[in-house]
């Protein structure tokens, strides 16, 4: 027999590599066990510390003086996580008191130093703390972080800026929202709610007006959380000018939130649109702002060629304040279209 199986060198090499893997596995396993042992101990110690700190923090918040022992440097992240969590839970004066307590412990300086950490998780933690502390000294560094390519880092920094100075942050936030199309809406909404509808609605509406229609829908969706007095004129202006279907559907959605029965004629114009999803949005909006007098328009949509339009029309009819089971049966008896009858049967059930 030739080659590997009789070649002593190959056999020895194979044995050596095999033993190397076995030995490395055993060493790795021992390391894992030791790490786990320390992890379990650390978890127990952390739980004890958290309990102790939570109790001291709460006592201080409610006027019972309880001094802090020095927080060891190695446990500072743990303390900051606890402090951040309490910030998320508390509201009003307690929140401010918690910030003062943190300042008295020089947490702001510690967090500013942590901004230079090489670990992303530490930087993220420090940014959140500085935001909650409304630490103005951190503004320029946070602004730099907001330009980062790392989305989480950038958004966390923007959020912190919005907490530190909502008024000043509006233009920055909106400028980033326009240019960073990759940022997810659900994260931006949290920031906008921090800033407040009263502050962001006008500048955002102005920005939307300046954008090409392709870029408008994403920001229009943000207007769900805006001020109705600003949103409605914007929506009417856009609907009068645009032919972009995405813009139309976003505007109809906004009308369903902020509009009232006076806007029904605008909506009805879209019930015969050539695109099914626009007709569907029309029906959906009509369901929100329409009333009994719009029943006939909705009834016509029960025979639409698209299932979703029929379905939304049936749901809309059901949601009208004056609709009763008898009324739906009566509407059904008037239908000659099989699809309309089917969808009404479904709604009745």
């Amino acid at each position, binding site marked *: *027999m030739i080659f590997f199986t009789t070649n002593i060198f190959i056999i020895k090499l*194979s044995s050596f590599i095999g033993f190397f893997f076995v030995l490395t596995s055993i060493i790795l396993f021992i390391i*894992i066990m030791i790490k786990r042992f320390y992890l379990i101990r650390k978890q127990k110690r952390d739980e004890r510390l958290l309990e102790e700190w939570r109790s001291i923090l709460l006592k201080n918040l409610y006027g019972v003086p309880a001094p802090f022992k020095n927080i060891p440097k190695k446990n500072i992240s743990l303390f900051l996580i606890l402090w951040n969590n309490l910030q998320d839970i508390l509201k009003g004066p307690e929140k401010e008191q918690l910030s003062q307590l943190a300042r008295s412990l020089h947490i702001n300086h510690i967090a500013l130093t942590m901004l230079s950490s090489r670990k992303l998780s530490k930087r993220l933690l420090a940014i959140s703390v500085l935001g909650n502390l409304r630490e103005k000294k951190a503004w320029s560094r946070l602004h730099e972080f907001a330009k980062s390519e790392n989305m989480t880092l950038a958004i*966390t920094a923007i959020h912190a800026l919005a907490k530190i100075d909502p008024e000043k942050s509006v233009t920055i936030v909106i400028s980033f929202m326009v240019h960073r199309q990759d940022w997810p809406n*659900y994260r931006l*909404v949290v920031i906008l709610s921090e800033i407040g509808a009263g502050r962001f609605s006008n500048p955002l509406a102005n920005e939307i007006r300046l954008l090409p229609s392709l870029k408008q829908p994403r920001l229009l969706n943000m207007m769900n959380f805006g001020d109705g007095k600003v949103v409605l004129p914007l929506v009417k202006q856009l609907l009068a000018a645009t032919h972009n279907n995405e813009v139309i559907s976003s505007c109809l959605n906004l009308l369903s939130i902020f509009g009232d029965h006076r806007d029904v004629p605008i909506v009805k114009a879209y019930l015969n649109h050539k695109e099914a999803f626009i007709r569907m949005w029309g029906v959906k909006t009509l369901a929100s702002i329409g009333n009994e007098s719009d029943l006939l328009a909705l009834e016509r949509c029960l025979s639409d060629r698209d299932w*979703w339009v029929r379905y939304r029309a049936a749901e809309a009819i059901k949601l009208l304040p004056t609709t009763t089971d008898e009324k739906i049966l009566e509407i059904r008896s008037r239908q000659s279209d099989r699809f309309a009858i089917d969808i009404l*049967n479904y709604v009745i059930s």
Partner: protein
Amino acid sequence: MSSISLVIIIFQVLYFFYFIGISLHYLILNISAAFVIAHHMEEKPSFNRIKTYSGFELPVSIIVPAYNEEKTIISTVFSLLMLKYPEYEIIIVNDGSSDNTLQSLIERFSLIPYPEAYKRSLDVNPIHTFYRSTTHPNIRVIDKQNGGKSDALNAGINLSKFPLFCCIDADSLLSRDSMLHVVSQFLDDTRTIACGGTIRIANGCKFKEGQLLQVGLSTNILALIQTMEYLRAFLFGRLGWVPVNSLLIVSGSFSLFKKQPVINVGGYSTGTIGEDMELVVRLHRYYRTHGIPYKITAIPEPICFTEAPEDLHSLKNQRVRWQRGLAESLWKNIDLLLHPKSGFLGWVAYPLTILFELVGPLIELAGYVFFLAGYFLGIISPQALVAFLILAIGFSLFISIVTIALEEMSFHIYPKLQNILLLFFAALLENCGFRQINTVWRVAGTMKWLFRFKGSWGAIERKGTSSTI
């Protein structure tokens, strides 16, 4: 040199390169997965701080195909009802079960028949009755003629109302925040069309009304070994491919898809056993060959628990089925292999999957036969046999221990020191018998695919081995 010697030399050279190749392949996947996990763990605390709903969470239709699942279906639905998610519906598809699956659902959730009007986007077998729950408005049940899991899933897609649908097995139990974790992938990157979760073994864990109370390990050796296998499969086998958008499978036990892309490619293929993998590969093929940007991803969070078979017969059926599914999926989408537009997936991931996952078991089995036959015929010395065994077992053990290390650097969900010790023994045991048997089953699966045996649901004997309080 005789022709037999020549054949033996060629065989050895091929085997040698195969071993080097598979070792490098696994090592690179491990490194890639380690990066994914490290990055994920760095950003995780930031994600966890977003506790409130933003209003942008996409509503989800959860589809649960059920075939003879009377023992597990109720706890699965309870687990789904407790999900922390703002808007979702649950569609259970009873695919012609011959046991009391439908009856238990009717009784437990007070189901009544109703006339459904739905958009039939995909062709499915005839539907007998639609039911809705009078106690839980977001539960609907389809009772249909048996047509297999794919057909059941397609029926669920037809009935679903929301833009995302989630497919889960009737024996899967989800963690409460699972949906938030998975949906965040679709919100973070709008190109995402599919996302899989990390599945763990439920055997040995304690559940109450479908909710995980305590993580533990089973004392059944087969379940224990499968725990190790699942760790390896999900922590590096899947996550390793994520950075290069070449993930070829998201588990059918828990996966989330955008509905429209799935309808565009024709839904689940009914002529396939591994419908989950086939769909994902088809999505890759469609999007790559049409040049549409997309992303198929997975998350490392252990968000779904599933029951593993504890007897050899069920396990064998499962593995044979999986291998057939793999073969079918790869064969049906063979256009993707080395396609000019297929990129890294078609030029690297696809060929490697064919080589190491489809053909691999055949090569491995041939290797065992070659070495054993050679030893008994006196061609291979005992020293050579032992040396190569140590090499093969040593490397497999190493990969398993690295997987435990990945788990340690991420979620360490098995809380006790004894758990780690048990996992280590599972890794040892796996290589001393189980791996070899599994190789035989996988070869059998490939053979069955080659000779086109008809498939079925391949039901597993459910024992309820995770304790339910």
